[in-house]
């Protein structure tokens, strides 16, 4: 394979952002097309290099082809979109019907989420599994809240260990999703500032358990509404074809849901807390894009070093 051809295929791969199996199919198909065309051009008297250059010029920009193929594949079927939105819908129902107080329902839900995530990972990580993957961060959040109830001496030992393990877990989940598309990672992280917003409004570190449960009980309909908003965002995200529209949808949905939390909790969330959450939401939206750039740059450098050896 000539360097120009491998660069072309690399650019194609970088911009496709499809499920791995679909991505491999597209690359193989275009590679076969290029081989056929180069073979034909060589019969007209061109050298391998000249034939490859001509063939790639006739094919056009790798970035444009990749974007058009992405748009052809990116719209998911309604069934997949609804499956992807199900965890948010189920949590919405848990709060709407006030079943959140029964530990049995929470455990069943967590087991269902973990089973679907494992099934999704086994099936090659289809895009409908990404919102489910986000829920594996729930035990991390619960462990973080439980830290608040530790005796003081233990607190200073447990927090650094917790921070290290939580960061490692969050990073590895983000890395898994980034390999397909950083936008899926941002979609997966969208509930984080929203759930944090509710935790800040409920303040589980103040008052006794009945008082905390009372506050959750008061906010339950609004919490259900925010989960419904997340579910609708996922359905719309998976039905939209264009990347820029998907990105806009994520930012708008995050902003509107956080504003809704501030409105319903009537001042329980301070203005600085709200501003920090909005900034955190934008940060969580952009971090996957930044990490993807770094990962791709790193793997390109590695590939170049292998070739030069």
């Amino acid at each position, binding site marked *: 394979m000539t360097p120009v051809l491998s660069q072309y295929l690399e650019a194609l791969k970088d911009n496709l952002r499809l499920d791995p199996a679909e991505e491999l199919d597209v690359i193989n198909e275009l590679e076969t097309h290029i081989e*056929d065309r180069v073979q034909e051009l060589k019969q007209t008297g061109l050298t391998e290099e000249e034939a490859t250059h001509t063939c790639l010029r006739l094919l056009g920009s790798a970035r444009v082809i990749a974007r058009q193929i992405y748009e052809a*594949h990116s719209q998911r079927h309604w069934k997949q979109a609804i499956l992807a939105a199900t965890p948010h819908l189920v949590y919405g129902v848990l709060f709407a019907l006030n079943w959140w107080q029964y530990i049995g329902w929470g455990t069943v839900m967590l087991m269902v989420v973990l089973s679907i995530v494992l099934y999704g990972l086994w099936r090659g990580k289809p895009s409908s599994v990404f919102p489910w993957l986000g829920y594996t961060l729930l035990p991390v959040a619960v462990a973080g809240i439980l830290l608040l109830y530790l005796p003081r001496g233990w607190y200073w030992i447990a927090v650094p260990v917790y921070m290290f393990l939580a960061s490692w877990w969050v990073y590895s989940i983000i890395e898994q999703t980034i390999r397909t598309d950083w936008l899926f990672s941002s979609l997966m992280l969208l509930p984080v500032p929203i759930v944090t917003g509710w935790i800040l409004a409920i303040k589980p570190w103040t008052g006794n358990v009945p008082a905390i449960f009372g506050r959750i009980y008061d906010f339950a309909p609004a919490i259900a509404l925010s989960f419904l908003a997340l579910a609708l965002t996922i359905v719309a995200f998976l039905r939209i074809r264009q990347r820029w529209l998907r990105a806009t949808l994520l930012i708008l949905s995050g902003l509107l849901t956080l504003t809704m939390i501030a409105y319903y909790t009537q001042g329980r969330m301070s203005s600085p807390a709200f501003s920090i959450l909005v900034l955190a939401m934008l940060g969580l939206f952009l971090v996957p894009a930044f990490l993807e750039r770094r990962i791709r740059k790193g793997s390109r450098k590695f590939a170049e070093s292998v070739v030069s050896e």
Partner: protein
Amino acid sequence: MAQRKELIKSSIDSLLLCVIEQQPMYGYEIIRELKRRSEGYFEFKEGTLYPALHRLENANLVAGKWELLTNGRQRRYYHITAQGRARLEDERNRWLNFLKAMNLIIQPVTP
């Protein structure tokens, strides 16, 4: 030339369905067949073919299938689906009616 490009762009789905109606074909074969059957009129920009084929496949109008050749290589052949045939039939009727009406009007009137 620009008009021709616009015409191809707006009829690309019907053209592709027409070409693979009789027998399954792979990408490059489709381009050659279109050029041959249109006597060189439809010369496709190669990069536009694959996004169009993938769009048709996602809409269940065609189905792509990898087939192993005798020389050990693999090629992705596109087959028309039942849904694709129904769509083609609709498009064909629409075109023929349009052409008939156009011919009636566009022909110079003989005194």
